[in-house]
């Protein structure tokens, strides 16, 4: 496996887990090990500003006496440190009141072999990564723009083991890269990103070209009035919105009456035929017909781990043709409600219609192309309304063509509404998110009636 930090091979992490569990005297225990060797390369103003490497390991142990549990986390692996951590967490657990929702550790299961490891990524050296970055900076200098970029190369692994005999180890490699280009006048800005498992798939020149082109094209933006309008959202914007939706698809919140799905489901079922089960939103047509979201850990374009806390993660449709197909259900809540536990998705894949970005734009008579969103925050949990802003390249669309840059907007919109109002989609791609690290492979979308709430002077 090439260069790896301590704790990253299956054998090392198994030995470490056994050392920890061997010290535990509590009724049950679960240990998670996360090891990583990271290189971070950061640039601004067309120079590298910091360049760092860090090896790290985190050992997270939960022990239980009956229904009393506590957890501890440490990065120290000596015998003395582990012994003390175990003693400390056991002392804590004995003092904690019984948790009526406590469950024993997860039983071992069969897991798909993940596809998150690429040897060339693991074997790359710090000098290699500087070699990847240098042409990008030189590209920006040649284009007479100021670039700021961030490259992270991660070689890591996670392991989970427990007193029920479970042991699962999953290594991963990734290179993430993002770049912002700004014109020298400061009024044009472009951003582009990529994330790959395999370093051979890196094409940083292409990413830099995209960022530089957007910066140049977005100079001297005109002011377009705010208001509800049709937008084309590039994949980076789509992923940020969809991540917010998925993380709120939670069964317990719904059952407790404090989910956005409560009012949405209520509105929908009031239109449906009598006899609809109003206690279960699964199977209801809550979104637009074109809305399909799938978790697929073995999707080669954006793979993820194949378990979540020991529960197998397999290909699962969450929304299919606008119909809600799955919600996160924790183990306790599943037991209480008599339904199946559903782990959180490790990735999100949204199939597209296969249209190019230009084809999507050509279908819009009057609208706005949004390339990236920023600072998304929940405003109204009852509707999942979020606010945020556009940045790094926003353009008017007139008669199916780009019609020049426009000033950025603040939006107030619910990602649930976005999935209701999407009318067409493009070709999926994996890009980095501004708010969430989950691997996502999503297409650009045309969304009607998107609420651009006010104009921002930021450029």
């Amino acid at each position: 496996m090439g260069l790896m930090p301590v704790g990253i091979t299956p054998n090392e992490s198994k030995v470490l887990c056994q050392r920890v569990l061997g010290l535990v005297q509590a009724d049950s225990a679960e240990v998670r090990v996360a090891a990583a060797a990271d290189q971070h390369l950061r640039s601004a103003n067309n120079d590298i500003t910091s360049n760092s490497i860090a090896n790290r390991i985190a050992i997270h142990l939960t022990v239980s006496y009956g229904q009393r549990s506590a957890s501890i986390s440490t990065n120290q692996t000596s015998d003395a440190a582990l012994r003390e951590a175990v003693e400390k967490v056991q002392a804590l657990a004995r003092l904690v009141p019984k948790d009526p929702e406590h469950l024993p550790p997860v039983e071992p299961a069969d897991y798909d072999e993940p596809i998150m490891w690429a040897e060339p990524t693991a074997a790359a050296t710090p000098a290699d990564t500087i070699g990847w970055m240098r042409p990008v900076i030189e590209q920006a200098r040649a284009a007479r723009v100021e670039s700021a970029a961030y490259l992270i190369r991660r070689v890591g692994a996670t392991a989970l083991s427990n007193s029920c005999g479970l042991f699962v180890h999953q290594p991963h490699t990734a290179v993430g890269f993002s770049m912002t280009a700004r014109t020298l006048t400061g009024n044009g800005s472009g951003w582009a990103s990529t994330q790959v498992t395999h370093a051979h798939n890196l094409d940083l020149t292409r990413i830099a070209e995209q960022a530089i082109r957007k910066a140049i094209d977005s100079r001297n933006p005109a002011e377009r009035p705010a208001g509800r309008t049709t937008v084309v959202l590039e994949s980076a914007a789509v992923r940020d919105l969809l991540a917010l939706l998925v993380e709120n698809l939670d069964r317990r919140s719904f059952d407790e009456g404090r989910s956005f799905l409560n009012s949405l489901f209520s509105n929908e079922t009031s239109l449906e035929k009598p006899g609809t089960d109003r206690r279960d939103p699964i199977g209801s047509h809550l979104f637009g017909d074109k809305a399909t979201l799938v978790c697929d850990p073995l999707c080669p374009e954006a793979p993820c781990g194949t378990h979540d806390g020991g529960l197998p993660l397999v290909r699962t449709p969450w929304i299919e043709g606008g119909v809600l197909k799955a919600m996160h259900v924790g183990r306790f809540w599943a037991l209480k409600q008599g339904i199946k536990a559903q782990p959180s998705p490790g990735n999100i894949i949204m199939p597209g219609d296969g249209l190019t970005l230009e084809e999507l734009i050509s279908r819009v008579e009057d609208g706005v192309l949004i390339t990236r969103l920023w600072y998304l925050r929940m405003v109204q949990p009852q509707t999942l309304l979020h606010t945020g802003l556009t940045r790094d390249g926003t353009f008017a669309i007139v008669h199916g063509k780009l019609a020049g840059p426009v000033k950025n907007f603040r939006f107030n919109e619910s990602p649930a509404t976005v999935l209701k109002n999407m009318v067409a989609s493009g070709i999926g791609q994996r890009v980095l998110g501004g708010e969430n690290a989950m691997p996502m492979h999503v297409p650009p979308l045309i969304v009607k009636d998107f609420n651009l709430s006010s104009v921002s002077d930021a450029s």
Partner: protein
Amino acid sequence: MNRRDWMKRTTAAGLSLIANRWQRSMAEAASVNDHFIRLADIPLNKATSLGASFADFHIMQTDSESLFAREQMVQGVVAESTFGCSVRVLVDGAWGFAASDDRSEESLVQLAESAVAIARAQGGWRRRPVEIEILPAFNGRWEQPIEVDPFAVALEEKIGRLLAINQAATGSGATFCSSHLSQVRERKWLANTFGSHIEQSRVRIFPGASVTVTDPRKNEFATRASFSPPRGAGYEYFRDLDCIGDARLAVEQAREKMVAPSVVAGKLDLVIAPSNLWLTIHETVGHPTELDRAMGFEANYAGTSFCTPDKLDTLRYGSEHVTIGADRTALNGLSTIAYDDDGVETAGREFAIIDRGVFRNFQMALGQAAWIGRTSSNGCAYADSFEAFPIQRMPNISLKPGPDPSVTVQDLIAGVEDGIYIEGNNSWSIDQQRYNFQFTGQVFHKIHHGKLVGMYRDVAYQGNSVDFWNACDGLGGEKTYELGGAFNCGKGQPGQAAPVSHGAVPARFRQINVLNTSDEAGNKTVASNGNCNGGKLGQWG
């Protein structure tokens, strides 16, 4: 088992065990103290011998404990410790940095070698070399003064308080109540080739709760979070808070909010409490005046700033009422510390960012002062872990009280014909150059004819940072000053979380743009006789 029984059962057993829970951390820290100068010489000498013009060596130990309770269940008791070190070098005008949790002498040598190697790998194609100022050497030890070490407080005492908060809330009619308590201790050792050897320790604590009331018949719910900001303080802060009273009030206010009329969007006068205004200060003054951001160093993530160096001493950032100062010395400040992570002494470096409305200074770290023609950093460097490269982070940034110490929040409200008094922070968002912001809050009291007359819901206020501060026409006096703050403010790539406090007095702002968030979601409110009844035309979407 009820709470009282549980307390009785655990108290006797708990006290003896808890006293020793953090013994190892303390022993390890003592061990570093004994050998720090000798340890630091190893990487610093190595780096210097390999050609570094500057090097520093950091050791950082972080202990934390977090407790989570929901209704009468304790759902999380999590202790965490990290301990590691890093070497930062400047070689031929380029930074190199390496970190590890291995503090052996062999590892320290390797860290220095690695840091120098990756700095040197940038050689030959830099456009501008990194230049830093010479700092005075300090040999100091500083420990934040606290009354009660939260790590020495019995677990059952802390859990008991959280369960009592939840009990008070549910007993008052809350459908749900969650509470938490987080505490952190940072120990830092810093040595550099200027000759400094510094050891510091500080503690912070963050109690909080959130109540929810629901109306299943209408598929509605409302929440209200507690007004208990994090502090750079010991357990005495949590001990002395009236969390029970606040939990009961929160239930009452959440209920009222759920049935309150929906605000009509438009321009309104606002009186904003410190519990909300601290976050507005953070976003509209704190982040825009970070010099690294203004110079493009955060362009790829957090963004740049409207507040550029050419606006120093000329930008009318706020009205004449507005003076906003920065320090790392305030009592209970989350950013308070004696030396920053570049080794700059913070005492005596307090500075005004905005002085009577005029923009006067940026926040700076090592090597940045020369960018604006100044001589030295003002002590704003911070690294959030042993593996983090120190970057410029916010000091405590606070709005100074008005000149008349007798002015109360009621006085400010009395000067409003129609408006809103906002308490508690909630949603916040601002653009990447810090012009356009939008904030919500926890509680929105309607002001009519200078008096509070009920509550609104669905309120957000939105504006431009400079316009907003220029619309300020009244401040509370010093008795109304309160310290708010954030436990985890994010910045940088890779992301770093920094604690920071913001003091404020209640302040009045004229004709601020108020949005109706229900309208924004696609639900229409209906106005009636200047008020609104919350009726909805058309459904969502």
